[in-house]
Structures are given as structure tokens and as C-alpha cells.
């Protein structure tokens, strides 16, 4: 009987110790896991946006393949090897610049989204501490809308193509005048395409992207105005 008594005592003590450890662990990780969840959801949105961009680019490549090839055929009629290389580079660079800028904008939106989740997390904690976070919540919602709108505009920009219209350029032979005309026609188209690309990208930068950046700044400003905002909640 004394053995049973000892076993009961040891078992009870062990259970209490384990239960206490679990209780302490659950309390201490609760706050961290909320932020982790928010950040995981932001990462999921970033991954989805990246997949969407990639899908759009694959579709675009398929769509412009013929036009690109026809333009390259015109470029190959340039006898001056240096000019021919430059023309090829410009044609490739037009698409490349669009890809670099839209990738950059997408990356910026991912970063802003992650920052916004931290603002949300801190606002939730301030609310738990009894602070009024109405202005922060409104600003966060606005920022979420602006980021989502900017993602749509970035995706639309990724669909834009900047290809030479080879059908409007006459074939050239080796005569100097013919070569000069070919280069001149290509130069005019390249310039026009570059101006359009620049206009589209700066429009996006100074429009939807600027709005998204500003909205997150505004949300952070609203958060900073909450008294004692950096205090951790009691539980």
C-alpha cells in the first residue's frame, strides 16, 4: 500500500509540473504566433502575386513570339554589325526594363504588406491594452485597399508589350539609302516604344505605387499617435 501511495504521489506531482509547463509555454508564445500568422498570410499574398506575374509573362512571351521574330528579321537586315547589335539589345531591353520595374514594384508591395501586418499586430496589442485604435484600423484598411489596387495595376503593366511593328517597316537592301531608311524607321519606333514604356512605368510609380507607400506611412503615423503603443499586453 505504501508503494501505491508513493506512485500516486509521484504521478500527481509529475502531472502538475507538466500541466504548469504547458500553461506557461502557451501563454508566452501566444503573442508571437499572432504576428507570425499575419506575416505568413502576407507571404502567401506575395507568393500568389509572384505566381500571377510569372503566368502573365509566360502568356505575353507566347503572344509576342511572332512579332518579336519578325522585328528581329528586320534588324538582321542592318549591315552595320554594331548597329545591328545595338538594335537587338534595345528590343530586348524594352521588355527587360518592364520586367525589372514590375518585379521591383511587386517586391515593394510585398514589403509594404509585411510592414502593414506589424502595424496591425501592434494596433491589436494597443487595443488589448484599452487604447482607442479606431484611426489606426481605418488607416490599415485604406492601406490594404491601396496595396491590393496597386497589385492589380502592376499585373496590368506586366501584360503590356513594347514590340516593334515590323509590318510597317519596309525591307532593306545593301544600298546606303535603304540602310539609312531602315535604321531611321527602327529608331523612330524604338523611341516611341521607349517613351510609351517610360510614361507607363512612371505613371504607375507616381500613381498607384505612391498611393500604396503613402497609405502605409499614414497607417504607421496613426499607430504612432496611440499613447503607450509599445506596451505589451498583460496577457
Amino acid at each position: 500500500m505504501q508503494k501505491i501511495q508513493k506512485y500516486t504521489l509521484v504521478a500527481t506531482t509529475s502531472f502538475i509540473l507538466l500541466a504548469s509547463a504547458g500553461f506557461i509555454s502557451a501563454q508566452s508564445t501566444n503573442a508571437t504566433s499572432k504576428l507570425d500568422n499575419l506575416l505568413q498570410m502576407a507571404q502567401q499574398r506575395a507568393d500568389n502575386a509572384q505566381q500571377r506575374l510569372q503566368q502573365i509573362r509566360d502568356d505575353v512571351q507566347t503572344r509576342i513570339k511572332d512579332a518579336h521574330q519578325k522585328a528581329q528579321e528586320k534588324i538582321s537586315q542592318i549591315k552595320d554589325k554594331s548597329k545591328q547589335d545595338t538594335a537587338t539589345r534595345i528590343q530586348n531591353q524594352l521588355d527587360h526594363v518592364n520586367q525589372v520595374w514590375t518585379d521591383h514594384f511587386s517586391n515593394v508591395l510585398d514589403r509594404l504588406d509585411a510592414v502593414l501586418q506589424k502595424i496591425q499586430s501592434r494596433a491589436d496589442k494597443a487595443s488589448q491594452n484599452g487604447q482607442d485604435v479606431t484611426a489606426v484600423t481605418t488607416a490599415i484598411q485604406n492601406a490594404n485597399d491601396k496595396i491590393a489596387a496597386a497589385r492589380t495595376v502592376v499585373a496590368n503593366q506586366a501584360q503590356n508589350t513594347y514590340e516593334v511593328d515590323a509590318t510597317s517597316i519596309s525591307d532593306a537592301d545593301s544600298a546606303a539609302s535603304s540602310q539609312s531608311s531602315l535604321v531611321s524607321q527602327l529608331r523612330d519606333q524604338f523611341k516611341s516604344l521607349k517613351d510609351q514604356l517610360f510614361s507607363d512605368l512612371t505613371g504607375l510609380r507616381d500613381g498607384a505605387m505612391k498611393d500604396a507607400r503613402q497609405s502605409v506611412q499614414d497607417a504607421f503615423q496613426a499607430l504612432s499617435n496611440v499613447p503607450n503603443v509599445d506596451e505589451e499586453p498583460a496577457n
Partner: protein
Amino acid sequence: MMSSKAVIITVVVVLVIVLAVWYLSYVFLGQMQQGQQMQTSNAPDSTQNISSDLNQVPSDSTVNGDMNTLDQDLQNF
């Protein structure tokens, strides 16, 4: 059968252990929470860290180089 004295001792010992464990856990938790308040500046969602994150969002000037290269090629064509 267990004697009544043994039962009382067992109950008292268990109660003492329970009280001790819960007391220590609350003391431990209290210290953790105080520590969190003192270390707020290190929390990922502290305003200081959020401000730092905002400053690290890439500037648009980082992609201007490609456009400049395109401009140069156009001038040389």
C-alpha cells in the same frame, strides 16, 4: 489500508506542491511580462522596428539604371 495519518500527510504534501508550482509559475510569468515590457524595442512589431522596416522598403531609384542603359543605347543607334 492506508492509515489516516498517511492520508493527511499525502494530501498536505500534494497541496504544498500544487501551491508552490502555481506560485512559481505566476512569478515566472510576471517576470517574463516585465521583461517583454522592458524589451519592447526589440519586439518585431515595436514602432521602432516598424519604422526601420519602412525605411528599408526599396526606393524606386534602384531601377533607374536599366532605363538609363536603354536611353544610352537609343542615343548610340
